[in-house]
């Protein structure tokens, strides 16, 4: 099939979805909404009644399936890596019929990781995020939950098929093309669920929501494209499908989750809307460098140049995302391990993206000079980028679907460090082994060594063992996450009475006296909430958060206080001093050093002499 037709069909489809999703269907909108809502709710007949249509049900089911696939896929990846240097390590399993070839094991890993673990976790986070941004629930929670079971079943079938002779030799799309169409079929109700949820909300559509919707549009496009693949083998179409799977689907969902959870968990606004828009459009309108193992044979120079330019341009959304989210997180990343995991994945985008770029460019019509590291880069893209963001998103958003916090911060910490060292250790070790193997495997080198009668040392094997063991940490990170989520769902601290999700931000919020932006955010104030200052300060109406200090200053001046300093901090301390109250720190006065207590007592106008106990007694009495 002609490359231009393939690309144009993809671009036109995405633009059409963007246009229709933002403008609606005109006079048919109401009918389309009602009809789609009916299909989602009643289309599956009695099956829909199997699951309660309660808020959070859909995302929770996707999380449950996704985290189990994460463990299984990571285990399969680990055994694949191990058997690469010790081929007969699992030979004994042949007794129970499990003796896959290298190609079969790789195909199983691809299906379980890309469609099972990552897709399911990212879809779960997408649903949880969408629900939080649109009033607390999806259009049809029960349909979303049912689709999770169906999706999981299709992945299971795929893993089974991977262990048969039905797999082909194509990079990444090893299974029969008809199999991948099933994901498009299952993606349709999920896509409409997102759209209906957004249409039912009055809130403006934010960047993460567009990532989710457009990502599903890209996934749906792969269905007809794969049908075209069934009419005849097309190297370019296969290559394009891999790029859409990585960039249009997995990366877009991951970026959508990252753009939501980082500002949301830290309680800060996303730094730049422009950079977020660049990330959104760039992700879909360029070829993702991820998916570096896909190769295309000889093509024309002009086509090679166009693809190279579009691949290089894909660094723009990557850099925009990293810059935007890193600035958003700033120095507050340490406040949440979920954010740390997400930012780990975002940060890894740059080195893995650049490495994959060079590999992809040489693999499209070139000599594929970097093909020896392509599989490692893809593994890093899956587990290092998408895996880290998927786990980070799960750590932050899963509690909102259950109404309870995760069970243990300690487990979250361990998960983060296992993921960090697992991914980095595997990446460094495996890349070294790849280069050593490629160097020693070159024809010239082999001939020279044979001629000299020299046997090369098995250094690469030792490094591969190290890389495999390091990757094992990723599998254990999945196990710990699953335990944390499972225990949290039963015994975590309740988030609040109106759980599982917070509603939309209030239209109006009244402030009395001094406040902070943190207090406003924790009170549920949104960007479009109208903030009113009580007391007729004249500042009522839609004001910016930065102007909140003005009414306080006005009040002070009205009370006739002289020597106004106009600073929030000084205003607060004056108020404290006037009332004589001393705020006790969270750890209590007893945790403070004596010098600090003396300073606090003096600033409060109290006697600072005597022992620590004496000073604490005076401070408590104040």
């Amino acid at each position, binding site marked *: 099939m002609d490359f231009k037709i393939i690309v144009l069909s993809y671009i036109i489809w995405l633009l059409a979805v963007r246009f229709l999703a933002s403008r609606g269907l005109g006079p048919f909108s109401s009918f389309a909404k009602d009809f789609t809502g009916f299909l989602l709710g009643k289309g599956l007949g009695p099956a829909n009644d199997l699951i309660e249509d309660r808020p959070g049900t859909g995302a929770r089911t996707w999380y449950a399936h996704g985290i189990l696939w994460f*463990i299984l896929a990571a*285990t399969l990846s*680990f*055994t694949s890596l*191990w058997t690469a240097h*010790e081929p*007969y*390590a*699992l*030979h*004994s399993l042949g*007794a129970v019929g499990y003796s896959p070839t290298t190609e079969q094991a790789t195909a199983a890993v691809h299906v379980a990781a890309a469609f099972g673990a990552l897709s399911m976790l990212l879809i779960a986070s997408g649903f949880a995020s969408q629900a939080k941004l649109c009033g607390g629930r999806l259009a049809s929670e029960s349909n979303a939950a049912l689709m999770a079971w169906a999706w999981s079943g299709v992945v299971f079938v795929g893993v089974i098929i991977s262990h048969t002779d039905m797999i082909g030799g194509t990079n990444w799309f090893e299974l029969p093309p008809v199999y991948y169409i099933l994901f498009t079929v299952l993606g349709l109700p999920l896509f409409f669920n997102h759209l209906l949820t957004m249409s039912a909300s009055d809130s403006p559509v934010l960047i993460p929501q567009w990532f989710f919707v457009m990502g599903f549009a890209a996934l749906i496009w792969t269905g007809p494209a794969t049908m075209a693949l069934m009419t005849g083998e097309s190297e370019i179409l296969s290559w394009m499908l891999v790029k859409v799977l990585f960039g249009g689907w997995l990366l877009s969902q991951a970026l959508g989750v990252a753009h939501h959870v980082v500002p949301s968990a830290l309680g800060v606004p996303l730094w730049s809307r422009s950079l977020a828009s660049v990330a959104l459009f760039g992700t879909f309108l360029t070829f993702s460098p991820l998916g570096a193992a896909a190769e295309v044979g000889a093509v024309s120079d002009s086509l090679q140049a166009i693809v190279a330019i579009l691949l290089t341009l894909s660094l723009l959304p990557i850099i925009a995302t990293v810059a935007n989210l890193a600035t958003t997180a700033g120095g507050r990343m340490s406040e949440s391990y979920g954010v740390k995991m997400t930012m780990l994945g975002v940060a890894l985008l740059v080195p893995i993206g650049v490495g994959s770029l060079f590999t992809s460019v040489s693999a499209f019509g070139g000599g594929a000079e970097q093909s020896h590291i392509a599989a490692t880069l893809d593994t890093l893209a899956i587990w290092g980028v998408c895996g880290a963001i998927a786990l980070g998103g799960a750590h932050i958003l899963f509690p909102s679907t259950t109404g309870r916090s995760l069970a243990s911060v300690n487990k979250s910490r361990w998960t983060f460090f296992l993921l960090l060292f697992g991914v980095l250790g595997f990446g460094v070790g495996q890349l070294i082994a790849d280069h050593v193997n490629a160097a020693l495997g070159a024809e010239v080198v082999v001939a020279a060594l044979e001629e000299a009668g020299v046997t090369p040392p098995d250094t690469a094997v030792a490094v591969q063992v190290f890389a495999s*063991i390091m990757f*094992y940490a990723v*599998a*254990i990170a999945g*196990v*710990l996450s*699953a*335990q944390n989520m*499972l*225990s949290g769902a*039963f*015994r975590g601290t309740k988030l609040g009475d109106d759980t599982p999700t917070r509603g939309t931000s209030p239209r109006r919020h009244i402030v009395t006296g001094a406040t902070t932006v943190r207090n406003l955010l924790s009170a549920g104030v949104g960007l479009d909430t109208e903030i009113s200052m009580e007391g007729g300060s004249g500042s009522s109406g839609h004001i910016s958060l930065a102007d909140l200090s003005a009414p306080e200053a006005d009040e002070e001046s009205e009370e006739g206080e002289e020597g106004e300093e106009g600073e929030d901090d000084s205003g607060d301390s004056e108020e404290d001093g006037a009332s004589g109250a001393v705020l006790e720190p969270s750890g209590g006065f007893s945790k403070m*050093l*004596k*010098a600090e207590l003396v300073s606090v007592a003096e600033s409060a106008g109290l006697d600072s*002499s*005597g*022992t620590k106990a004496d000073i604490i007694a005076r401070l408590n009495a104040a």
Partner: protein
Amino acid sequence: MTELPEMTEGGEEPTSARVILTISAIGALAFMMLYSVLYPGHPFPGLGSVLPLFSELGDSVVWFFLMGIGLGVGMLVATLLGETIAD
């Protein structure tokens, strides 16, 4: 003016889990060092060599790792069953 002490001692202790984990890690490292000194050039014994019950699995070390994942998944199932019954 009361003199401040040069240093103070706290009463906190590390959690038992962390102590056991550290000792286990050091123990495993010590075993590997000892084995490589006593049997230089020999591969580490696999699960099948240590436990005759698993002798059919062969001598690969990978089974220790898979056993770890198996234990983790087992704990998951146990937690799920326990919490469901408790509910």
